[in-house]
């Protein structure tokens, strides 16, 4: 009899890739809790997975595996889900909780808390009702908040979060640490970007959100004064030499699944990238993609003009990724992965980062309308 696994967030960025990895690396039957939107939960799930297969380098034959082994169960983490235990078969071995809100504006604070914290609480209750062997939670490396230096794969106790999103992930992790009667693993990816070979992505927060805001700001200023930002560099008070930890989504999924099938007894794993550009290099690529000169790095914000203040306000959420040296320890991850820890394929450098950015800009041009400057 094949293994049975429950997954939340299966239509999300990491969730879709996790499902495909589980289909590839195991013979498990997958039960995915999915919201129905304009289409049924099953249609939505299968369409999203098919889109990811098409955009990445997964074997097209996986489509058949999806139909056979991937079952959608309509559910909404903002509603009641405990009763779903009756409609999910017994014998569930693993529960993967990937669902999360990636919003961060204050007006979403209640929703973020509801999905990320209360949603996790409900997922844990359901997992316990299903008597699962292990609860796997996809968190973020940035539960480290404003901590700097070496960030260990340990529970996060005292931490100053940079925003409501990070805070919600810390609280969700704390709910998981409190589990006495259920084995758990917490996976902490850093800033997840597109597929390492095709650059394909389906979620556009994180680095893509930063790039989009840069493009929007340039557009806004072009309406105020054509060409201004092409002539004048924006000032930023960031640490140009600290690494910015970008990790391709396929690496996150592959390593999470490999760790789950390893014999590691550790509970927290950094799914970060050892080969990444520094902030100065990454910003130069992002600004260049937007058609702007690299930002001028300043030592303090007193050197800001109004435009600098306004731009830095708009990207405030991203500041914690651009300041403060963080070195994510991967001892537990590397030990669990053994020879599979080799990550050269997933290196993100100043040289290939522009490929990810160009892919996104092309996608943006296809999906987003543009209002010409009114003259």
């Amino acid at each position, binding site marked *: 009899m094949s293994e049975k696994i429950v997954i939340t967030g299966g239509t999300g960025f990491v969730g879709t890739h996790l499902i495909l990895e589980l289909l590839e690396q195991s013979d498990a039957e997958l039960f995915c809790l999915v919201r129905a939107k304009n289409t049924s939960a099953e249609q939505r799930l299968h369409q999203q997975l098919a889109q990811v297969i098409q955009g990445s380098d997964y074997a097209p034959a996986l489509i058949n595996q999806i139909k056979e082994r991937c079952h959608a169960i309509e559910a909404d983490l903002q509603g009641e889900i405990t009763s779903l235990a009756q409609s999910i078969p017994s014998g569930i071995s693993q529960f993967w909780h990937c669902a999360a809100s990636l919003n961060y504006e204050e007006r979403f604070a209640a929703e973020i808390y509801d999905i990320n914290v209360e949603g996790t609480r409900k997922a844990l209750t359901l997992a316990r009702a299903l008597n699962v062997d292990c609860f796997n939670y996809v968190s973020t490396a940035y539960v480290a908040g404003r901590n700097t230096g070496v960030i260990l794969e340990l529970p996060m106790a005292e931490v100053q979060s940079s925003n409501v999103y990070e805070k919600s992930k810390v609280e969700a992790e704390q709910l998981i640490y409190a589990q006495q009667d259920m084995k758990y693993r917490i996976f902490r990816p850093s800033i997840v970007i597109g597929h390492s070979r095709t650059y394909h992505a389906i979620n556009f927060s994180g680095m893509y959100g930063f790039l989009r*805001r840069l493009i929007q700001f340039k557009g806004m200023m072009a309406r105020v*004064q*054509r060409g201004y930002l092409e002539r004048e560099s924006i000032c930023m008070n960031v640490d140009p030499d600290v690494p910015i930890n970008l990790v391709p989504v396929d690496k996150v999924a592959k390593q999470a699944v490999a760790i789950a099938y390893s014999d590691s007894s550790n509970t927290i794993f950094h799914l970060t990238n050892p080969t990444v550009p520094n902030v100065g290099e990454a910003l130069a690529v992002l600004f260049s993609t937007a058609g702007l000169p690299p930002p001028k790095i300043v030592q303090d914000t007193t050197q800001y*003009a*109004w435009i600098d203040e306004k731009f830095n306000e708009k990207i405030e959420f991203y500041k914690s990724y651009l300041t403060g040296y963080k070195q994510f320890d991967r001892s537990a991850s590397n030990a669990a992965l053994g020879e599979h820890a080799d990550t050269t394929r997933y290196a993100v450098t100043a040289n290939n980062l522009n490929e990810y950015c160009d892919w996104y800009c092309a996608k943006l041009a296809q999906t*987003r309308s543009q*209002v*010409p400057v009114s*003259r």
Partner: protein
Amino acid sequence: MSNEIFVIGTGRCGSTLISNILNHHPNILSLSEFFTFVTDLGTLIPQAFPAMEIDGTQFWQIVSGIYAKQNIMLTHDIAMKEVLYPYKTDGRFNASTGVPAILQTTLPHMTAEYDALFDQIHAVIAARGMATAETHYHALFGWLAAHFGKSIWVERSGGSLRVIERLYQHFPNAKFLHIVRDGRDCALSMQRHNGFKMVLLVFQIIEVLGVDPYESNDRSWQDDLPDELISFLPESFSGNDFLAYDVPPSLYGHYWSGEIIAGLEVLDRIPVTQQLTLQYESILTDTRSTIEHMIQFVSPDSSTNAAWCNAVISSVKRPTAAWQTLDAQEQSRLNDACAPGFAALTKRGIQW
């Protein structure tokens, strides 16, 4: 010489004063803020100048349209002070019905019988057949001038440098009276003006949503909208938040520079005989000779110019906005923001 005149300039350059004094000239019809409102504060300029021929009914829709941005400002009692239509009374149009573009300022500026004139214009325009927008505009302005027994019309809209490319394209024989004012004072005055605040807010929202939220219901990108801008979507508009929203003078300084640079590029293509640039400050400090100079350009053959000058000189008042009242940091930022505009004007021999 042309009897079609446009007064052009950046926002808050002092051109309203020009409209007001020209309104007293016996030979001149003053068309005030016409293009401000038919372009919905300059955000729908291409729509006001369609490339294809249109019939009278379609042209009337442009001229008498009830546009979203200008009317939401009436609804929330934050209308620009240029609006002359009594929208708060039980008139034919009010904040609930919306006020047609041409009635916001243009017709009440001409006559107290603006509602009746509105109907007369409607009848004239509706009877027109297919023609270019340019032909329709010529016909409308010509009809209005004739209706009031004037030989010259002068259109003036705040911040009309933004539309000068279209004006020159559609009125290639018109004369252009360019009013320039110290950008720092323009910026400070724009900061206190609800119309320019609305425009800059809409610029920001358009870039996030990818659509003009006042013209489209598409909210696909609304999650990207910062909290501070949510109150300025039409469906969640808050007049109090609008009044509280602070845009610093330096952004308007950048806007002023941008408008000056782009506008001068067009002015450079217009024959010198068709344009005159006057500094607003000269009107204040050297009132008589500057106004005489201006009226010679606008209406060189009129025998009534001297009497008109005598009558209007006393109405020239010094405005209150003075950028020197800002604190040192804001002054410095404003100087930097206006520097590109000043540099462009210096090349044309205009300095402060």
